[in-house]
């Protein structure tokens, strides 16, 4: 498994993305982190049901579909995290009384699923051309039994860890937009993980910039 050094202990698995691969959604993207792969599709701005409409902003709905089986309580918690992160960055007041639907299909889960969902979501929102105030990326950190911090853990590393944290980092000030944690850890460990996630996010934001540059340089 190829791993890319991002300096001072922050290691990410090999990541990749493809945009605009589906014809029906307004925006689509896949994001791969090692073996974990998520496919995102965005529809919007579109017609909204009257009971869901908000008078001054767009209504965002997020659906996370697991690879096998029906969606359960775990997917709802993920949907809430992704939705509130997207609502914080999208300029939804530019599309009042409209709906934005983001569907995330888990293609393969080999750890760091929530961060892969966030990255796929951001790329799909960019592909759809929805106005955003800033970009975001997801980074997962795991603390193993020796108190070592591993960024972008695999499923095996997640199972063996005593704490697992996922952060969504924003592109403007590198602050934490979203935090979802499992397991117990000290305050110092939390701060170290946030610092590592912020470092790792630099690489991902550079990747977003490069992929958009590459895509639009062919058109211009």
């Amino acid at each position, binding site marked *: 498994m190829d791993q890319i050094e991002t300096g001072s202990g922050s290691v990410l698995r090999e990541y990749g993305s493809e945009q605009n691969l589906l014809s029906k959604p307004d925006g689509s993207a896949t994001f791969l982190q090692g073996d974990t792969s998520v496919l995102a599709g965005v529809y919007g701005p579109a017609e909204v049901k009257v009971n869901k409409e908000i008078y001054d902003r767009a209504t965002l709905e997020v659906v996370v579909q697991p690879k096998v089986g029906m969606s359960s*309580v775990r997917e*709802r918690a993920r949907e*809430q*995290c992704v939705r509130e992160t997207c609502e914080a960055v999208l300029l939804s007041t530019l599309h009042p009384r409209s709906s934005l639907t983001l569907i995330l299909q888990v293609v393969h889960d080999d750890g760091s699923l929530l961060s892969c969902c966030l990255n796929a979501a951001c790329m799909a929102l960019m592909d759809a051309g929805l106005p955003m105030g800033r970009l975001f990326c997801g980074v997962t950190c795991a603390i193993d039994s020796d108190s070592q911090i591993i960024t972008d853990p695999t499923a095996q590393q997640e199972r063996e860890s005593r704490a697992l944290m996922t952060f969504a980092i924003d592109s403007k000030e590198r602050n934490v*937009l979203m935090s979802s944690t499992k397991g117990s*850890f000290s*305050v110092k460990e939390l701060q170290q993980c*946030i610092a590592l996630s912020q470092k790792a996010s630099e690489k991902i934001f550079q990747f977003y910039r490069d992929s958009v540059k590459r895509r639009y340089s062919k058109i211009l």
Partner: protein
Amino acid sequence: MAAGFKTAEPLEYHRSFLKENCRPDGRELGEFRPTTLNIGSIGTADGSAMVKIGNTTVICGIKAELSAPPSDAPDKGYIVPNVDLPPLCSSRFRPGPPGEQAQAASQFIADVIDGSKIIKKEDLCIEKSKLCWVLYCDIMCLDYDGNVLDACIITLLAALKNTQIPKVTINKETDLAEVDIEHKRHLQINKHPVSSSFAVFDDTVLIVDPTAEEESLATSVITAVVDEDDQLCAFHKPGGSSLSAEKLQDCITRSVTRHREVGKLIDKVLESTKASK
């Protein structure tokens, strides 16, 4: 006149209070609402507790049942929390299947139970691969006035401390479980996680223990769960405006203080129930 302003411009109304470093209900920015706790109110449950944080009322009932242990963990029992936000507690919840907020809250509580190791699951096992206890924790909100997650964690902890389960032995000859209702024991509670919720207004002001109106106007909501060793069991921030490092540290410091207060409250109530028996 103030009521009209509050309905027409709720955000400006709240901002005018925050400028003076206070809130519409008269609290300081860092002040929690008065918390009251009642234990053992549900006679038919094995353990129960009800907590009121201001107007938010949440009740938890625990039922212990016997079951076969899960095949991937034959020496462990399991705890199944379920948070219910019925239409009774607020007009924002409609009748029907549980909404996203209730499900996300249930997942959050399940993660806190696993992460904080409040109960060692091995203690719930009666006989490996054959019989174990399952604790069904039903948490229901009766009155929703913001900060449900904090109330759920406090009521769950108090109910677990109140729970008594009978002794169970397996008869070697018949291979059936024999439940001895006369002899009951309390559960072994290892950690005492306490949660504190915060709301961020306009990306700048941090307030503690938001009411329902404050939650709906806030740009971000944060919940931190701390146990007695000052370890964090959860740091839940489901999106919203970005959080700087100082605010994060501020949240954690306040959570640690809150942990002391709630710990004392739970101990006091348990002492009084023991004394009354």
